[in-house]
């Protein structure tokens, strides 16, 4: 189905395949609002208790070794600083390819996540290790680019779309977009919906394929779990391939309860349509211990088949070093130290 943007009328919104299937042909701002506001509220106390309980699971020895390797394979190694340079991106890519030079059995990360203007440098540095290249085989590393005036999302639609299209043209495999939280919080769901649809269209490559779209909800600014659930539905209905918690620039970033509530939406969507949507908690996950809690939560909520790079990612920078230290501890039997991993 084509996804051309209908600009006519204040209430009509862009037709998106999923929304048309679920809500019906009369896809208007009003019907969308009715649908989203009809979603049952979140039991906040129950959600937090459930997240807490899942976090107490004890993962040891061989399970831990598996979990650590899996965390690395699910990581979007990220650098999103104003001070980023091509050199910084090259060293990030080097680390993504060989996370621990002392142990070449360490898996590669799933992707590197950079600002749009850094995509060419990441592409160049990845070379044959890039997922799109012919030599990478199945285990290549993707390039994810943040777009749409990341992290605030405060720019005109045209600027956001140009930002996205430029990153895709430069070779980004995945686009991390931010939603317009201002519009969402003031109830203009149709505007948010339209924008996601338009960005999705901007992810289209010349050959007709699409760059993977991750929709950042910035849950730290949405205030309630009800809003998180509603925004998750909204992002999925509008065509997002992934829903992502945060930019990492706002505190609180990813938390376990928020991620759990998003996973529940993904589970419900899967039951409803059979389609699998990815989830990416990002920001604030710094230790292996915290990351393992997320793995448990994913496995218990949507199932173990979600623990693969197409369906679950960690957006992290310092997490990788901690996981490597833990791997070294498992291999050597003694605690390792920060002098034994690279400085980011």
């Amino acid at each position, binding site marked *: 189905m084509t996804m051309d943007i209908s600009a006519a009328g204040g209430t009509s919104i862009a037709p998106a395949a999923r929304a048309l299937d679920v809500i019906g042909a009369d896809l208007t701002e009003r019907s969308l609002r009715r649908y989203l506001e009809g979603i049952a509220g979140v039991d906040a106390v129950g959600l937090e208790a459930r997240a807490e309980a899942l976090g107490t699971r004890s993962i040891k020895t061989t399970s831990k070794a598996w979990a650590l390797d899996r965390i690395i394979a699910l990581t979007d190694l990220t650098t999103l600083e104003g001070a980023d340079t091509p050199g910084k991106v090259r060293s990030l890519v080097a680390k993504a390819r060989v996370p621990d030079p002392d142990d070449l059995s360490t898996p590669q990360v799933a992707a590197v996540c950079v600002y749009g203007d850094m995509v060419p440098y990441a592409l160049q540095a990845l070379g044959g290790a890039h997922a799109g290249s012919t030599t990478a085989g199945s285990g290549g590393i993707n390039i994810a680019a943040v777009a749409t005036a990341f992290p605030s999302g405060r720019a005109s639609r045209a600027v956001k779309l140009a930002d996205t299209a430029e990153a895709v043209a430069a070779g980004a495999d995945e686009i991390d977009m931010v939603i317009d939280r201002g519009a969402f919080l003031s109830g203009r769901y149709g505007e948010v919906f339209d924008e996601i649809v338009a960005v999705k269209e901007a992810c289209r490559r010349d050959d007709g394929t699409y760059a993977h779209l991750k929709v950042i909800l910035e849950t730290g600014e949405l205030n309630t779990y009800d809003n998180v659930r509603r925004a998750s539905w909204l992002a999925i209905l509008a065509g997002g391939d992934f829903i992502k918690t945060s930019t990492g620039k706002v505190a609180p970033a990813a938390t376990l309860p928020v991620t759990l509530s998003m996973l529940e939406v993904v589970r419900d969507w899967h039951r409803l349509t059979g389609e699998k949507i990815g989830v990416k908690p990002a920001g604030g996950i710094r230790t292996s211990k915290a990351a393992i809690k997320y793995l448990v939560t994913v496995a218990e909520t949507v199932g173990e088949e979600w623990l693969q790079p197409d369906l679950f990612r960690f957006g992290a920078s310092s997490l990788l070093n901690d996981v490597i230290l833990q791997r*070294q501890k498992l291999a050597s*039997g*003694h*605690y*390792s*130290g*920060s*002098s*034994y991993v690279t400085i980011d």
Partner: protein
Amino acid sequence: MSQARLTVPKTYKLYIGGKFARSESGRVYEVTTRKGSFMANAAKASRKDARDAVVAARAAVNGWSGATGYNRGQILYRIAELLDGRRPQFIDEIVQSEGVSTTAAAAQVDEAIDLWVWYAGWADKYVQVAGNGNPVSGPYFNLSTPEPTGLVAVIAPQDSGSLLGFVRAVAPVLVSGNTVVVVANERTPLAALSLAEVLATSDVPAGVVNILSGSPAEIAPWLASHADVNALDLLGAGDLDWIDLQIAAAETLKRVLPPESGADAGAPSIDRITFFTETKTVWHTKGLL
């Protein structure tokens, strides 16, 4: 209405990163008087507590080693001041746990206070003694200065005076700007744990001193092999298999001080300060006018 007061038995906690924490393992053990009656409970640290203590101590290295020697001296002197203010408590604990006379306990506390003052004085002076301007055949200033090695794990004396032995082990390490993870006297840990309360209320930054009570035999191997520990003071490890600890320490190139025993164990010496330093030598051109 006069009723017999109930005693308030205390559970001492570990001192990690400036906070009083229970052992991650949830374990405690009984601390008894010399004669065997119950005094208090103390947390029995596990290897994971040691790991957490190392993380806290590592985080404190930059701040503590970056402070001026003068500032460190002032802070160490402040410990002596506060220790002096709580003299009766320490005397009481030593009398009970070591079974010594009040006079002997008072002498021990006084010596410990004086030792803090003595080491405090060295903080802005040891560099002048241990450093040097080296004569070189060229138009250069060539200066060698000692710098702290980083994070030092210490096994406090297990037989001698519980407060004095602890101070003898810990104070010299702090002088140059190292941070410390110390395993206290296992049988009589109260002096060390009460000293933690002194440290927490003096100006010592969080994480500079981390105190673990429990079994040195259980914890020491983890500290000796820990890659983030830069040096190991085995002062009180005489009863342990300390050769193995040395071997484990060698794997990650740690400096190691061997155990000492008797009344003179860890006697005050500038050598105990300079042992935990690394020498940095700087070449600088002389101005040619």
